[in-house]
């Protein structure tokens, strides 16, 4: 089920009313679990067994890890969880990629394979998200960060919690599981905040991202015949399309969870106002980058074992991050570009300059230096998106070559500039708190804006475009 469909528009209030009509936490969790399975099964019920098996494996593995006193046995159980989750992830997501790459490699050295063992595999929606979530639970129990739960229903609700099941934010058991175990009470303010986030998320997805996609798709499909200016616009549009698409999804997820009395982690904190690449990665897809930091980068030694180890680790997490996004060399190239940009900051010890600060916190407009930093960072990020969006690395280079060598004033595809300006202004005004969009003190003005946004969402809603991150 997609967030931007009529089905969800009916599903959400029904589930919400049923949920708050129940007073018992266990029954509430049973309802969350059942509705999450309905939500997922609406797409394809056959893949529910994957979530279920992943849930069962990690539930028992975590208990075993906790029960045993022997470190080696703990390690074996942990490996069982990791191998199981990675096996299903690799099989469904990367099997064909590995086979095809192997065949290409063989044919490049003159050995042509006649029978290719590729399979017609459907990529289960959200597999990269929920496998990471369940794996992190076993890892946290192994590291004694949390206790293994004996409440299977609560644990299964944590794994399959429908607002964030298919595209995150990737939750940690330490944050979400305790909320599933404790009693939840209806809070009017929390629910209204949630509804506001849903409205804002839908606006970003349906009005901005989907409108930009109508321009981005023909530009990338016909880049050979367009001028450099139009290709540049295509790139800018894609930057904002993917941002509004994915952050819109996260806002809807966080907002929906709030309606059920649950607080999820923030996933996007105005990444395009970052002043360097390291700040960008603290603001873009936060739940994934922090996952890689906590479960790969730090266990590998992080930055504490010398510069070379640190460089190696940074390179590894960015390559994995790229590969996580899809079984294609373009994503690896995208990850590599970011690793190089990040490494430049690490080597000059400038990667921790903007850890928590908000750009131009006490000013209405940025300083010239801030504007310059933001523009440069945005430009680098945007260039890297070519690799993310193109079908092949060759296409990416040809796109960039055409854009730079054939630059001219764009004569078509200019209508998207309106959407770009709209999102920049609204994000700038909101930049102090990503969880409180549309925070306008005057009730009348606020309601007028709500109604206008709602009307725009409904009128743009006919396309029912999937969220980009569903494919990952």
């Amino acid at each position, binding site marked *: 089920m997609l967030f931007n469909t009529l089905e969800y528009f009916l599903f959400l209030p029904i589930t919400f009313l049923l949920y708050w009509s129940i007073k018992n936490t266990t029954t509430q969790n049973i309802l969350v679990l059942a509705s999450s399975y309905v939500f997922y099964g609406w797409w394809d019920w056959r893949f529910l067994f994957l979530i279920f098996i992943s849930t069962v494996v990690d539930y028992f593995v975590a208990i075993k890890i906790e029960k045993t006193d022997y470190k080696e046995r703990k390690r074996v159980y942990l490996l069982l969880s990791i191998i199981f989750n990675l096996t299903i992830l690799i099989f469904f997501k990367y099997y064909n990629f590995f086979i095809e790459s192997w065949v290409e490699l063989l044919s490049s050295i003159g050995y042509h394979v006649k029978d290719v063992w590729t399979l017609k595999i459907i990529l289960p929606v959200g597999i990269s998200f929920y496998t990471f979530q369940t794996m992190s639970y076993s890892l946290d129990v192994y590291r004694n960060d949390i206790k293994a739960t004996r409440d299977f229903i609560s644990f299964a609700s944590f794994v399959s919690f429908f607002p964030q099941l298919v595209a995150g934010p990737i939750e940690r058991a330490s944050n979400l599981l305790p909320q599933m175990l404790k009693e939840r009470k209806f809070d*009017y303010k929390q629910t209204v905040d949630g509804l506001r986030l849903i409205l804002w998320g839908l606006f970003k997805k349906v009005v901005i991202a989907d409108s930009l996609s109508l321009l981005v798709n023909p530009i990338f499909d016909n880049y050979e015949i367009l001028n450099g200016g139009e290709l540049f616009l295509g790139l800018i549009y894609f930057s904002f399309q993917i941002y509004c698409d994915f952050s819109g999804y996260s806002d809807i997820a966080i907002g929906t969870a709030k309606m059920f009395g649950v607080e999820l982690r923030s996933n996007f904190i105005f990444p395009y106002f970052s002043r360097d690449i390291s700040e960008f990665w603290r603001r873009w897809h936060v739940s994934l980058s922090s996952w890689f930091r906590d479960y790969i980068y730090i266990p590998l030694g992080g930055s504490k074992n010398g510069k070379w180890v640190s460089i190696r680790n940074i390179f590894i997490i960015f390559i994995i991050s790229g590969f996580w996004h899809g079984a294609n060399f373009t994503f690896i190239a995208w990850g590599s570009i970011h690793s190089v940009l990040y490494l430049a900051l690490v080597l000059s010890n400038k990667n921790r300059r903007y850890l928590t600060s908000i750009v131009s916190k006490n000013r209405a407009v940025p300083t010239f230096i801030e504007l310059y930093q933001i523009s440069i960072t945005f430009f680098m990020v945007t260039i890297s998106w070519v690799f993310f969006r193109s079908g092949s690395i060759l296409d990416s280079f040809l796109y960039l070559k055409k854009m730079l060598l054939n630059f001219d004033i764009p004569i078509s595809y200019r209508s998207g500039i309106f959407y770009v300006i709209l999102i920049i202004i609204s994000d700038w005004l909101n930049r102090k708190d990503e969880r409180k969009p549309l925070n306008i003190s005057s009730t009348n003005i606020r*309601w007028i804006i709500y109604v206008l946004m709602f009307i725009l969402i409904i*009128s743009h809603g006919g396309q029912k475009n999937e969220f980009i991150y569903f494919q990952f």
Partner: protein
Amino acid sequence: MKKLINRTLLFLTISAIFSLLLGFLSVVITNKTFNFEFKKYQNILIVGNSHTECSISDKILSNSVNISQSASSYFYSYIKVREFVKRNPTIDTVIISFSDNDLFSEKEKWLSSTEKIRNKMTRMIFLFNTEDYLTLFCSNPITTSLQSFIVYSDFYNLYIHRRSFIGGYNQFNKNKIKESILEFNQDTPKIDYKIAHTELKYLLKIYELCEKEGVHLILLNSPVHPVLQSHFSLIKDRNYKIASEKMTNATFLDHSSYKLDNSMFADLSHLNGTGSISYSLFLKSVFSK
């Protein structure tokens, strides 16, 4: 919880009222500003679905105006004929697509399916009268009701694109005839002997309207690829019978076997740009006679 429900209902009511007002306003403005008028020398109106949309260039057949649109039910063609003939006394001929499969029972969906209503209703509603609205409503009440709240959504497109947004000649540049033949051989479409009654009803209404207004109706079976032409040959007689029995004064032009090179087709049932130019020149010569 009560407060939340009350506020939500209030919000939805305000949004609904505002949407309806906006829709009403956009219908009125579009109706007032839309360019219905033809040039004096334009006496032929072309309506119908993708068959006429892709096969007749009104630049070549210069005394015509093509406002056909793909996947248009005869219901929408009827509304177009009614509104344009009423405002243009110069129109003396209406050409409408009447291909072999246009009365297949599956074409009932062209009026009632959710997808089609979503696509057509907001761009055509400014031409509707109450009866049209009720017809659509009875065919699919839920989608029609929901769509009524977003009538304004195509106002911008109608304002920018004007007449082309409700139909026009479409020059296809593709040629996928090889793939289409392959697809046809793998999955040959069945011949549907059941008739789409609502489609036939509106086709007959178009005929009656033309008769009343003194306009000559031409039922055009436009060129299709020989593979499809021979496949549909079994049903051809039925369509001819309907035309000759129920629309006695209409002309049935069967050009389905008009010879064109493979390179002139977009797919089995549609001409591409080169094909449509060749066919439009031929049609021009037919009309000049």
